[in-house]
């Protein structure tokens, strides 16, 4: 916590100054990274929304600060995009009678994003074991065989994944 809390008005003025001074630069930077202006504009908005909601006080090195916030948002965005791509591909392969309604599809996608975020920091093999158990419904023995690990290890991985999910679930 800082000693001097900015008044809300001050904070908004600060962010406004940051926006006027640097949003063009940030947009250009993101557009180069993404190769598309629309997504870049979205990310610029997200970045400033995040800053506006934060309690950041002084922007000593505005561009370094912006890069840092935008970098986090970009990484997260790429992850979300790759999940959405995989989800859409899976939808395409589903037999027609089993394709859920548009609203349900959206709900599922939201939950997928949540679960994806919970599993984010787990080692790949732990994540895999967890998904094989919880989504594919495989028995621990079968998972051990498929991943070439011992049954004890599968159980340890499962517990590790559950601890992680329980910490992060809302």
């Amino acid at each position, binding site marked *: 916590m800082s000693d001097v809390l900015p008044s809300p008005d001050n904070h908004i003025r600060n962010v406004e100054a940051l926006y006027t001074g640097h949003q063009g630069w940030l947009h250009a930077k993101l557009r180069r990274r993404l190769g598309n202006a629309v997504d870049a504009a979205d990310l610029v908005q997200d970045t400033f929304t995040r800053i506006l909601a934060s309690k950041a006080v002084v922007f000593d090195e505005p561009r370094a600060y912006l890069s840092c916030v935008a970098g986090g948002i970009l990484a997260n965005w790429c992850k979300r995009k790759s999940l959405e*791509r995989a989800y859409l591909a899976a939808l395409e392969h589903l037999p027609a009678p089993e394709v859920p309604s548009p609203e349900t599809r959206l709900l599922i996608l939201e939950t997928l994003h949540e679960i994806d975020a919970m599993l984010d920091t787990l080692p790949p093999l732990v994540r895999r074991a967890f998904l094989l158990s919880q*989504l594919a419904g495989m028995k621990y023995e079968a998972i051990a065989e498929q991943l070439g690990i011992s049954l004890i290890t599968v159980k340890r991985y499962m517990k590790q994944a559950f601890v992680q999910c329980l910490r992060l679930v809302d």
Partner: protein
Amino acid sequence: MADAQRAEPVDAEALEEAAEWLMCMSAGDVTDAQQADWLAWRNSSPARASAWQRAERLMGKLGGLPPALSMPALDRPADPGRRALVSRLALLLALAPASWAGWRLTEQQGWAADYRSGIGERLDLTLADGTQVVLNTDSAIDVRFNAGERFIRLLRGEILVQTAPDIVVPARPLWVGTREGRMQALGTRFTVREFGGRTYLAVIEGAIRIEPGNADHLARRVVQAGQRADFDARTIAAPRPADEAVTAWTQGMLLADKMRLDAFVAELARYQRGFIRCDPGIADLRVSGAFPISDPRRTLSMLESTYALRVEAHMGGYWTMLAPR
């Protein structure tokens, strides 16, 4: 503090223990003793109860995900090359059969079936010859018609068959086959259920001849309308009277007439995902009435309001337990 609500205190130790329980439960079936231990654990402190609430929220989220869609999305490669994804997806779909409505944790059979219904679903079909088939919850059939016969293979679950006069002359015999044997329809309306290594037949109109798979012709038997009989691959049990309860499912109802609660629960479990169990202490409670199978929650609340029991739903409704009140 605006964040106070979010910053719900979490007891790290209770969370570890909850994770341990989830790990055990995900291993497969849970014994009654384990279940009692778990209940005692959960009720022993507020921290544990609150850790378990998180577990329920988590399982609720996971349980709501259709595997065929979620597995490829969550298990995607770090760098999703489109080709890699597609080929892996094909593999997954082949390995882990998943239907949106009818996913069952271990059941794999029926994926390649001609027709199948999910858990809680009912499917009405009219076959090429006009024969009508209704699939009860979690059922699968193959249909093979050729010049010489009409054959319906029941892979799992339960069906009602209403035969039609064949469009081909001379009429081809209509058979229903199960793992235990086959049945020839001599009449028009009957149900067949495949369950626990036995076939259960109930004849509503006409007659059916049963031919167990591993028995000679002496073991064959004709079952008349109003009768039911069950058989394995060798022998047929003596027919008994069949009542309207056997076809109630086609009307979306489960009829119980002084049915033991454990039998009732086993019947109800066919129509919903997840575990449902009753406390051994009330297993012999007798239940009567007509219950909507398409709405298990309502059925459970009807039970709760009529009998001396309470319904405990855990893990987002994934695990239901009936306990004495």
